C-alpha cells in the first residue's frame, strides 16, 4: 500500500517534524493532494498523497520523523491498516526504543530455558547472570533440603513451622559467622540491643522486640527471629545451616542448642537448662523442628543426629529425654546400634522424666505417663505408661455435653474464687451466668453462657469478657469473646481480658488466633 514518508533533504539533519495533518484520518484523498505539512531543515513543505484512497495517520502532529520512515498510508479500497508491528515502526520515533529493565545474559537465558523458569522469578531489574540463576536454583533446592533430610519420615499429623522452608531470609555475612565461631566470647557479653544490631547489620532477619539474654550467643549462617521473642541468659546456639525462631517465643536461661538446622515455631515456651544437640549434631540429618505453642519443660535433653520433629501444641515436660541414636558395641557382634528419627505429632504430651528412644513416634494427642521409657511408637490418641511403656488406654475420655457444661461452669466459678482469694471484690450473678468485679471505681464482668442466646444483659459501663461454651456466629459488639470448645478468641482484649485468657490457657485452653503471650495483669 502506498505510504507517506519524508525524503532526506540535507546532510546535517536526521529528521523532520510533522507540523500538521491537512486531511483528517480516514478521509479520501486524491493523487497529489497535499495531506500533511512537514518542516525539514530547509523549509516547510507539503507532503502529497502518492495515490488516491483513504488516508490513515501513522504519527501524531508534532512528532519528529526520521527520513524515510512512514508517517501514514493511503489505503486502496479493500486494503486495511498494516499490522501493529509495522505501524509501531512508524511511530516508534516518538519515543526511544523501549529498554528491557530485566535482561538475562546469554548463559543465564540458556539455563532459565532449561529449568523452565521465568526471569521475573529472579528479579525485576538488571542483568540476570548464570550465577544468579544457579543461586536461585540452589535456594530452591535449599528450600526443599530439610525436607530431603526428612525423606522417609511420614509428616502426617505434624504441623511444622513456616521457617522450615524459608531459605531466603536472614543470610549472614559468612566472615561474620566465622568470626563468631572463632571468637564469640567478647560478642556474647554485649548488651542485647548491640548484639541484635550487629546481627541485623550482617544480614540476620530479627524482628522488633526481640531480647537476647546476657551472655547469649547465637551462631548460624542464617538467623531468623520473630517479633517479641526472648532468648534467656547464657544461651549458646550453634547451627551449621540455620536457626529460626518464631514470634513470641520464650526460652529460659542456659539453653544449649547444636544442630544443622533448628526451627522453632511461634509461641514456644521453653524452660531452663534445656539441651538440644549432643553427638552427631553436624550430621546431614541433624534437623530439629518444633511447631507452634509447643512446651519444653526444664532440663529437657534432646539428642539430634537424626531429625527430631515435634509438632504443634506438644508438651515435652521436665527432664524428658529424646535420643536419636544409642551408643555401645559393634552391631557385628550383635549389639544394637541404632540411628533413627523421633517424631512427636501435634498435641501429644510427654510426662516428666520420660525417655523417647531412637525411632519412636508419638501419634497425635498421644500421652506418655511420667518416668516412662518409650521404646516403641504410641498410636494417636493413646495413653502409654511404664518401663518399657505400653498402651494402657485412650489418651482422652469421652466427655458428654452435660459434663462439658459442668466443667465450663466450674471453670468460671473457680475463676471467681481465684479472684476473690486474691482479694478482689467479686459479686456473683444470681443466675449463675458469671460475676462482676469492682476495682478502683471501675467495673469488670465475666459473663458466661452455653450459647450466644443465653448471654445475660451486660452492664453498659463495665469492661466485659464473654465466655461461651459453644461457638457463635455474631459476637457481641464490644468486649472480649472467648469460645471454649472451638478455642477461639474474638474482639478487643484489655488487661482484664488478657488475664481471663491466661486463666484458661493455664487450664489447657489455648485460644486462636495466636501467637499470643500473657504480659501480666490480674493473674
Amino acid at each position, binding site marked *: 500500500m502506498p505510504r507517506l514518508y519524508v525524503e532526506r533533504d540535507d*546532510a*546535517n*539533519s*536526521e*529528521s523532520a517534524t510533522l507540523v500538521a495533518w491537512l486531511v483528517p484520518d480516514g478521509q479520501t484523498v486524491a493523487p497529489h493532494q497535499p495531506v500533511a505539512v512537514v518542516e525539514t*531543515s*530547509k*523549509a*516547510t513543505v507539503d507532503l502529497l498523497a502518492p495515490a488516491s484512497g483513504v488516508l490513515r495517520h501513522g504519527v501524531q502532529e508534532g512528532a*519528529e520523523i*526520521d527520513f524515510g520512515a512512514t508517517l501514514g498510508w493511503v489505503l486502496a479500497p479493500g486494503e486495511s491498516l498494516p499490522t501493529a508491528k509495522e505501524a509501531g515502526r512508524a511511530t516508534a520515533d*516518538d*519515543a*526511544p526504543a523501549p*529498554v*528491557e*529493565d*530485566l*535482561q*538475562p*545474559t*546469554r*548463559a*543465564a537465558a540458556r539455563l532459565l530455558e532449561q529449568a523452565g523458569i521465568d526471569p521475573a522469578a529472579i528479579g525485576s*531489574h*538488571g*542483568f540476570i*547472570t*548464570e*550465577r544468579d540463576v544457579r543461586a536461585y536454583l540452589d535456594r530452591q533446592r535449599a528450600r526443599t533440603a530439610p525436607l530431603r533430610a526428612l525423606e522417609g519420615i511420614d509428616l502426617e499429623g505434624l504441623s511444622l513451622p513456616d521457617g522450615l522452608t524459608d531459605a531466603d531470609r536472614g543470610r549472614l555475612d559468612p566472615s561474620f559467622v566465622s568470626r563468631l565461631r572463632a571468637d564469640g566470647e567478647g560478642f556474647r557479653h554485649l548488651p542485647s540491643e548491640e548484639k541484635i544490631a550487629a546481627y541485623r547489620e550482617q544480614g540476620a532477619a530479627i524482628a522488633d522486640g526481640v531480647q537476647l539474654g546476657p551472655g547469649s550467643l547465637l551462631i548460624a549462617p542464617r538467623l531468623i527471629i520473630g517479633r517479641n521473642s526472648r532468648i534467656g541468659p547464657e544461651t549458646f546456639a550453634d547451627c551449621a545451616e540455620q536457626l529460626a525462631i518464631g514470634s513470641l517465643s520464650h526460652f529460659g536461661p542456659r539453653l544449649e542448642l547444636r544442630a544443622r538446622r533448628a526451627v522453632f515455631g511461634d509461641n514456644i515456651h521453653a524452660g531452663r537448662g534445656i539441651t538440644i544437640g549432643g553427638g552427631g549434631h553436624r550430621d546431614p540429618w541433624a534437623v530439629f523442628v518444633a511447631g507452634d505453642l509447643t512446651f519444653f519443660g526444664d532440663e529437657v535433653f534432646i539428642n539430634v543426629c537424626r531429625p527430631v520433629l515435634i509438632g504443634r501444641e506438644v508438651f515435652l515436660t521436665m527432664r524428658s529425654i529424646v535420643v536419636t541414636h544409642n551408643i555401645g558395641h559393634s552391631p557385628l557382634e550383635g549389639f544394637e546400634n541404632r540411628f533413627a528419627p523421633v517424631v512427636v505429632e501435634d498435641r501429644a504430651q510427654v510426662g516428666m522424666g520420660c525417655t523417647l528412644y531412637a525411632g519412636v513416634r508419638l501419634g497425635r494427642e498421644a500421652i506418655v505417663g511420667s518416668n516412662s521409657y518409650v521404646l516403641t511408637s504410641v498410636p494417636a490418641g493413646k495413653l502409654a505408661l511404664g518401663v518399657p511403656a505400653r498402651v494402657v488406654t485412650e489418651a482422652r475420655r469421652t466427655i458428654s455435653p452435660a459434663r462439658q457444661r459442668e466443667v465450663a461452669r466450674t471453670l468460671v466459678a473457680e475463676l471467681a474464687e481465684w479472684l476473690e482469694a486474691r482479694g478482689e471484690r467479686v459479686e456473683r450473678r444470681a443466675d449463675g451466668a458469671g460475676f462482676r468485679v469492682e476495682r478502683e471505681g471501675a467495673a469488670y464482668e465475666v459473663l458466661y453462657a452455653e450459647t450466644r442466646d443465653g448471654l445475660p444483659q451486660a452492664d453498659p459501663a463495665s469492661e466485659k469478657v464473654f465466655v461461651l461454651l459453644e461457638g457463635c456466629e455474631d459476637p457481641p459488639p464490644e468486649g472480649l469473646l472467648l469460645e471454649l470448645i472451638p478455642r477461639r478468641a474474638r474482639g478487643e482484649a484489655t488487661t482484664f481480658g488478657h488475664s481471663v485468657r491466661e486463666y484458661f490457657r493455664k487450664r489447657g485452653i489455648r485460644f486462636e488466633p495466636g501467637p499470643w503471650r500473657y504480659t501480666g495483669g490480674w493473674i
Partner: protein
Amino acid sequence: MSTRCAAALNAALAEALERWDETLLLGEDLADPYGGAFRITRGLSTRFPDRVLSSPISEAALFGVSAGLALRGRRPVLEIMFGDFITLGLDQVINHIAKFREMYDEQVRVPLVVRTPMGGRRGYGPTHSQCLEKLLVGIPGLTVVAGSEYHDLHRLLLAAIASDDPVFFIENKLLYSRFQQRGRDGRLGPFLWEEGDSTYPTVQLRAADRCSVSVVTWGGMAHLARQAAEQLAIEHETMIEVLILSRLAPVDLTPLLASVRRTGALVVAEEGTLTGGVGAEIVARVQHEAFSSLRGPARRVAARDAVIPAARHLEDAVLPQVEDITDACLAAAAGTEH
C-alpha cells in the same frame, strides 16, 4: 513524551534568551529558516530577532567579538558550526578568553559559551569529523563540557550560559537526533543509575552492584560504552561500571576514583585520536591517586592516530568501536598485560 537532544538544547537556548536579556547567540547561519547547520537554533531568530545573529564566515573574529561582548556585560553563546573550525579561533581562546580573568587579576569575567558539534560516524571526512577536546582541556581558565544523552542537556547548557566564566560546550553530532536517556529511581533499563548533584555531574551506569571494570567516557562515546556494557553483561557476564563525564576540564575524578577502588580496573574511552588524548591525562591522575587499587594497567580506547577518512568503512576502521571497548574491558577484567 521523550525529548530529543536537539530539542533539549534548543529549549535551553530559548530559556536563556527569555530569562537573561544579555544573552546573545552568534554564529554562522543561525537565523531562520535555516536555524543553524544542525537546526539547534531553529525558531530562535524569529522569537529574538535582535539577539540571534547570523555572522559572516569569520570564526577567528567571532571568538574575539564574543569575548569582547562578554567582557562588557553581555552573555554571548557562540556556535561554531563544526568543532573542527575551533582551530581558527584558538588564539582568541588561548591568549584572550581563557587568560583574561586571571591575567587581569580577577578584575573581569568572561561569561561566554562556545557551542560546537564534534565527532564522526557520519562520513563527513577528515575536516568535519574530529573530536578536538584534547586541544582545549589543557588550557587553564577554560571550562570544557561535553554532554551526552545521559545528561540533562537542557540543564547542562543553561548552567554553562549562567556561568560567568568561559565554557566550551561540545555536542556530539550523533547526539542531536537521539533521545535523552534519563534514569529514574536509581535505574536506567537494566543498569543501576546514579548522577552526581554537581552542576556538571558524572552519570554512572552500573551493570551490577559489583563490577570488574570502570569505563570512563564522555560525549558520543557514552552511547558506545553503554552498548559495550550490555554486550559484556549478556555475552560475557563481565559487569562494568560506565562513568559518563560531563565536564572534562577542570575534571572532577572523585566518582571515577571511587569506582576504580570498587572495580580495580580502568578503561578510558574517547573518540578523539589516541596520542595526547584526554584519556592520557585521566589515566595519569587515576594511577597517581589509586595505583594500589588497580589490578593491571589502565587501558585506553581511542581513534587511531590518523586522518578520519570519508568513506564509511574506512572511517569505521579509524574510529573506536564498541568491540574496542569490550575487548579492552575483557582484558582489564582479566588483569592481563596487553
